[in-house]
């Protein structure tokens, strides 16, 4: 890049002009006409040299001004307008197009000096015309007479010369845009004009790439905000811990991402029984969360209107089967606790077994039922009745718990759940949840959860139950 003309050089020039002018004054009084003319010519030359230096200096001053303005612009439209405004101060043109190129297509553009019906032709320039050539080669194209260039696409009638300069990414070095200047004069552009435009282009590239990054960040931030709202909504779908008629119900759910496909729920059905459910939607994140919300609604509605558990699951299965593909399915444990008769009726649709810890220390695995729901439309689910009495407690969990992987790659496993929770004597539901969380965290030892992890504990208290 050419250096701006130094001020000291300008001062020397001015001094020379001044001396010459003094000589002219003397000659005009007593010298010959020829010598005077020669001297005047010399002065004229010095003056135009000074002019050139001065305009050069001004252009670079303007350039740094534009660069400064650009450094504060954020919006792409704003940046492009300022680039063209700045360009107009520095280099004369009759039409200008600034094109931002992404994946070989015009992602944004700023046009000035073209008639509206010529718009299509301007567009054709990319890929075919001179602008396309610049994108492809990354080299400046300077045409002194467009009538002699085959690549030129006439987007304007008056154009005689053209200057197209690539704009390079300051990150990757790839061509990310083109500055295209058109003039009605022949030979309008010199090499130093091209240099100047290139300098402006690299400043513009910084501003444009910063703007793009800013907008990507804003976009990401908006997605994150929406995800937070989704997480809040999902969390509000979980029931509040409850205790009644000697039953304590406590749940815990931690999605591995902001939202997840696990959930637990419980809801009173009549004045003597309560429905409990834990479910795990295949997959993670938003898709799983949406299926989960649909499933929860469907199950709550069915549970209130249909008595038979196998029928409820059958209906929910039909709903899920009809709304999702075969690879979108749910494993689920659904049960109804009748606290008058002290029985639990359940069906297990391909879910991890429910763990029933008996008062006498025995543990039953509740694993009867059928396949996961949402996979097939011709399956049935059997229901099983077990005793659920004061002093017993039930733990439901998702595979995020048993498959919690330590740094060394060991799975938490079901044995730990059976033994460790089984060793608790008359625990409260809170204690069960806390205990599992603690031993799972110890197992993970700082490793992140790879999957959603959900727990539901139902403790049938001995002393508080009045029979």
């Amino acid at each position: 890049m050419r250096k701006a003309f130094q001020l000291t050089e300008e001062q020397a020039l001015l001094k020379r002009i001044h001396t010459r002018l003094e000589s002219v004054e003397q000659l005009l009084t007593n010298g010959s006409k020829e010598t005077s003319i020669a001297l005047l010519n010399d002065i004229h030359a010095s003056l135009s040299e000074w002019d050139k230096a001065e305009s050069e200096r001004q252009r670079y001053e303007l350039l740094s001004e534009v660069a400064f303005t650009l450094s504060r612009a954020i919006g792409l439209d704003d940046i492009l307008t300022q680039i063209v405004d700045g360009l107009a101060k520095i280099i004369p043109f009759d039409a200008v197009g600034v094109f931002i190129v992404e994946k070989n297509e015009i992602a944004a553009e700023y046009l000035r000096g073209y008639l509206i019906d010529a718009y299509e032709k301007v567009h054709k320039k990319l890929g075919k015309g001179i602008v396309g050539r610049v994108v492809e080669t990354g080299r400046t194209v300077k045409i002194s007479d467009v009538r002699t260039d085959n690549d030129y696409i006439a987007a304007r009638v008056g154009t005689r010369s053209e200057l197209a300069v690539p704009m390079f990414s300051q990150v990757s070095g790839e061509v990310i845009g083109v500055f295209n200047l058109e003039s009605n004069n022949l030979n309008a552009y010199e090499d130093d004009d091209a240099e100047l435009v290139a300098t402006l282009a690299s400043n513009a590239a910084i501003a444009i790439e910063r703007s793009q990054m800013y907008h990507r960040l804003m976009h990401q931030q908006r997605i994150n905000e929406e995800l937070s709202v989704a997480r809040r909504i999902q969390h509000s779908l979980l029931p509040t811990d409850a205790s009644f008629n000697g039953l304590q119900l406590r749940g815990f759910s931690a999605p591995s991402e902001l939202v997840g496909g696990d959930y637990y729920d419980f809801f009173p059905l009549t004045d003597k029984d309560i429905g409990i459910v834990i479910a795990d939607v295949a997959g993670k994140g938003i898709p799983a969360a949406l299926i989960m919300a649909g499933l929860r609604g469907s199950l709550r509605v069915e549970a209130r209107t249909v008595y038979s558990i196998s029928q409820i699951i059958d209906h929910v299965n039909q709903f899920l089967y009809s709304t999702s593909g075969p690879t979108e399915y749910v494993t689920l444990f659904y049960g109804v606790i009748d606290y008058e008769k002290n029985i639990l009726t359940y069906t297990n649709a391909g879910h991890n077994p429910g763990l029933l810890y008996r008062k006498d220390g025995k543990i039953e695995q509740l694993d009867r039922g059928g396949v996961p729901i949402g996979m097939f439309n011709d399956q049935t689910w059997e229901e099983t009745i077990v005793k659920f009495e004061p002093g017993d407690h039930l733990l439901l969990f998702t595979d995020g718990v048993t498959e919690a992987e330590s740094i060394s790659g060991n799975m938490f496993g079901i044995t730990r759940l059976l033994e460790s929770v089984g060793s608790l004597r008359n625990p409260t539901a809170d204690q069960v949840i806390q205990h599992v969380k603690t031993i799972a965290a110890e197992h993970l030892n700082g490793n992140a959860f790879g999957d959603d992890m959900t727990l539901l504990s139902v403790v049938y208290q001995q002393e508080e139950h009045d029979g």
Partner: protein
Amino acid sequence: MTKHKLAVYGDVVVLHLRGKLMGGPESTEVTDEIKANIAGGFKKFVIDLGDVEWMNSMGLGMLIGSLTSITNAGGSLYLARVAGKIESVLAMTRLSGIFNTSPTVEEALTKV
């Protein structure tokens, strides 16, 4: 990372799956492979799971998706060498009955 292999024995397509079936891009690879072979006129498939170490819900979804595509096309699928983790996942989800299984690939070839 799973690297799958595909072999054809007569009119049976055998897919040897390896590594972990965790719903990554390799899952789509398998279902695409099966769909392509169905489109190519094949109806008999064997998925060899002997070298699969681990499978999660997405991997299971992939197997179900494969079974659905094959059944809908009037074909049949056998899972061969189902053991360890895969066996326990199929048992827990009670899907063992849904799939035809066989202890060896050779046996699956004769049954499918």
